[in-house]
């Protein structure tokens, strides 16, 4: 569902105030760079956009979520500090990104999401979503949220659930009905559309949860543990769905314990531990091992492998392995957690730069 051009134009104009501007296409379009020209193609209609439909925004990618010195202290009834859940978090999530928030239990990632959604109020600092304070309900018009568990009304059936959430967006009845049908098909629960949610399995409840998060065709989707409770096939489907949403140009903030999920789908990640940001950057750069060269090939004979070994030796290289030389996100994550526990305090973060390999003395 594309935004009306006028509304979008207004937003872009607001965003570009005082900043150098360049041509930019509305949401749901892709840009092809041809020698000497920039063409904007509508993803939906697959046609060239007219100049009138192309608007200007700031040169930097639009920041969808911004936190500045965000802190959260939980207090008891008497105002005494119970726990400092978040310590000075600075974060920017840009339009079209699939951003992963990682951390062990109690690291502050759910608190961060709740602060972004306005479910909690910051003790210090600020959060803005689409340039508005997190407590401003108008931001919710452009947000879809899938909670950690399917916190839905169990006495409603799937149709009633989606219809109810659709009404909260003031979607007209006709459009709402169409959207409900589309989403029920998308999450594949047609066979149970009139069954009360209390009769749903956990996997089905996650699907309807995702459907309700998409009822307004949001620009920003916040997914809290989206694959929890799903079987391997469900996990795969969920990941495919997330990637499909990214292809549609949605901004996605995802928080998960399942590191492989994050590694599979996220563009950028932030790792939190004990309420502090420990690492932030692109997944591919963070996972890249700088001084190791990986060559992937198929159909090599033993002689060819021997020849490769020889070539490496001739060039004074050390052959580490001939198998798949890769690291995992899990390894990186655990390293960071161990590092953090060994040396409490803030860790220097270089966004987009691979971490410098360090060896701790045994």
């Amino acid at each position, binding site marked *: 569902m594309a935004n009306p051009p006028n509304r979008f134009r207004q937003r872009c104009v607001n965003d570009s105030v005082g900043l150098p501007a360049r041509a930019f296409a509305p949401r749901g379009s892709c840009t092809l760079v041809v020698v000497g020209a920039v063409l904007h193609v509508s993803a939906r209609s697959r046609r060239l956009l007219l100049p009138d439909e192309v608007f200007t925004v700031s040169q930097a990618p639009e920041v969808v979520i911004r936190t500045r010195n965000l802190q959260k202290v939980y*207090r008891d009834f008497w105002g005494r500090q119970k726990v400092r859940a978040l310590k000075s978090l600075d974060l920017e999530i840009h339009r079209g990104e699939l951003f992963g928030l990682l951390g062990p239990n109690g690291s502050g990632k759910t608190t961060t999401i709740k602060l972004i959604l306005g479910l909690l109020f910051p003790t210090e600092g600020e959060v803005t979503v689409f340039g508005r304070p997190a407590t401003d309900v108008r931001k919710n018009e452009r947000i879809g949220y899938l909670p950690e568990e399917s916190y839905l009304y169990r006495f409603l059936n799937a149709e009633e659930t989606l219809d109810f959430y659709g009404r909260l967006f003031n979607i007209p009845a006709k459009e709402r009905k169409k959207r409900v049908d589309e989403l029920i098909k998308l999450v594949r629960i047609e066979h149970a559309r009139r069954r009360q949610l209390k009769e749903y399995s956990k996997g089905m409840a996650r699907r309807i949860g995702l459907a309700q998060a998409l009822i307004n065709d949001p620009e920003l989707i916040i997914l809290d543990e989206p694959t929890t409770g799903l079987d391997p096939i469900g996990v795969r489907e969920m990941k495919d769905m997330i990637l499909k949403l990214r292809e549609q140009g949605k901004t996605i903030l995802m928080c998960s314990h399942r590191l492989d999920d994050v590694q599979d789908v996220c563009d950028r990640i932030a790792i939190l531990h004990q309420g502090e940001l420990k690492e932030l950057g692109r997944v591919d750069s963070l996972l890249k091992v700088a001084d190791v060269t990986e060559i992937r090939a198929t159909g090599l004979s033993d002689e060819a492998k021997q020849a490769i070994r020889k070539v490496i030796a001739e060039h004074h290289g050390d052959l580490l392995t001939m198998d798949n030389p890769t690291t995992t996100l899990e390894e990186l994550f655990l390293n960071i957690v161990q590092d953090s526990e060994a040396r409490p305090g803030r860790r220097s973060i270089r966004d987009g730069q691979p971490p410098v390999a360090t060896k701790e003395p045994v």
Partner: protein
Amino acid sequence: MVIENELPPFWEWLPGALGTWALGCLILAVAVVAITLLFGMVVSGPAVAWRQTRYRLAAVVKDLLLFSPRRALAIAGLAMRESIRRRVLVVFVLYVLILLFAAWFLDPADQEAARTYLSFVLFTSAFLVLVVMLLLSALSLPTDIAGRTVYTVVTKPVRTSEIVLGRIIGFTAIGTMLLALMSVVSYVFVVRAFDHRHEIDPEQVREVKVYADTGDRIDLRGETNDAFRHRHQFSIRKGSEHGVTDMPLVDTPRNDEELNPHRGVVQGHWHKVTRRERNGQVSYEVGPPEGQLVARIPIYARHDNPAQGRYGLTFLDRNGTPTLKGINVGNEWTYRSYIEGQTGAAAIWHFEGITPERFPNGLPLQMTLRVFRTHKGTITEGVNGSIRLVNPKNPNIRSTFIDFRAKEYSIYEHFIPRTLRGVDPNNPANTIELDLFAGLYPLVEDGELKIEIRCNDRAQYFGMAKPDLYIMAAEGSFLMNFAKGYFGIWMQLVLIVSLAVMFSTFLNGAVAILAAAAGGISGYFTRMIEEIAAGPEYGGGPIESFYRIVTRRPMATELEPSLTATVVQSLDYGIEAVLGVVARMLPNMGGLSDADWVTSGFDVPTDVLLIQFCTVIGFAIPLYVLGHYILRGREVAA
């Protein structure tokens, strides 16, 4: 039915009430903002608290202004679905079951059966609906917060004002549905309970010669068979087809129109009797019971307007001098005044709107006079008094005194016929026949009439206020009045739901239920709280009483002036002031009930309904805004 407070006309009540309401809202708003600030200061310091409170107030106002009815209705629809899926309609089934077994303990043959039946159905439905809706509405939001379902709602563009109002509307709608179902079943139950027929054996009917002032005639008189453990005497004038049961054997009316006002009742009702004659065969048909389920419309004395010198009730003191107040005999309702017996003292009611069209046969008067005895007298016989009708435009046109006997705590009914003996204006020593509306000397002129009451027993007193004497006008529809009774319950429902939803915005389920129940129940005792707040006459307030207990001082003696006494009494003044404010801020739940009117067979006046409705709205609005304010400042995920 005794009206304890004078009923002001709605439009005269409204300006004063609006002023009080605005003041109450202001006090509430200041108190709430002060508490928020204070709490914020303790937790985060003054600067942050001030900033947060300012932001919160701005957000609250903004949310109210940008309120979306469609979203509120979506939340209301959800609340209704929630109630229905939680089997709230079981309450209706339970009510029907109660009615099915009610016949075991309700007796339709009882003299006060109509009152008992109506009280029973009104009380039972009110109790069931109010309790169930209180539970549902107090539990809904805390359950959503505890179950975190609220996360998926507040992360949509929903404003807290819509969440709170949506819930109030939703639960009120469900309660309304329940009440509507119950009222239909109750109406059928009550009407069917009293529906019975009698039969008349024509052979038992006999002719009786009646000697009356207006001429002798022959009546047909007889008795019905026994049904519902009673039988009726009846009387039909010979040659006429229609008659009624339970006619007094003396004082026979002169025409068919006069039959009804003169009728008596057995077990609170009477029947119409029709005589039919076909092919020489005579039969008698007895109609359904009448006079039991009624909605009588009383006409009260005109409303006071001191600016124009118009008063509904004035007095003559013991010397016969006009005055606005009678004597205060002490420990009684302050607004009732008393007149002394066998003196020049009198109470004079001034009526308007008395027309021959409304009262073609005469004036059915009803009085609820208080009797104050300075000596025991003949305690079983009541105190003697007399009534006199006076033309307000020409006081020389007046009736002779009509004697009556008033008893404590009972309603005295007296029918003033269309023509009665009066004083000859030209020669007060003579009496002449006067007509209420016609003739040379009509007692009623331009619809106005004065009715004068005197007490005839020496050293005894009659006490009265304006609503204590009224004329019964035409009967209204019982069905409509029954519906008004349920409307009264509906208004209580709105208040209970608003209270429960408001408390549920910051308390968890069980505590919210208790708080709402406490608020509702104390609403039935506002008068008592006001009396406590006004300060007890003996022994002081709670602190002073405690001080007296500890120091073993008697209750009736004054405390000697000392610092302790000053501190104790100052604390009591403070408590009493707070209690006074609280009493005024509590909804008067008892005052919202129209059950007394309905069970007493009186039509609920429109002014009363309007006042009650505005009172409910006046409470519901601040409760809604307060709930919204609290929820707006609450971290639902904390």
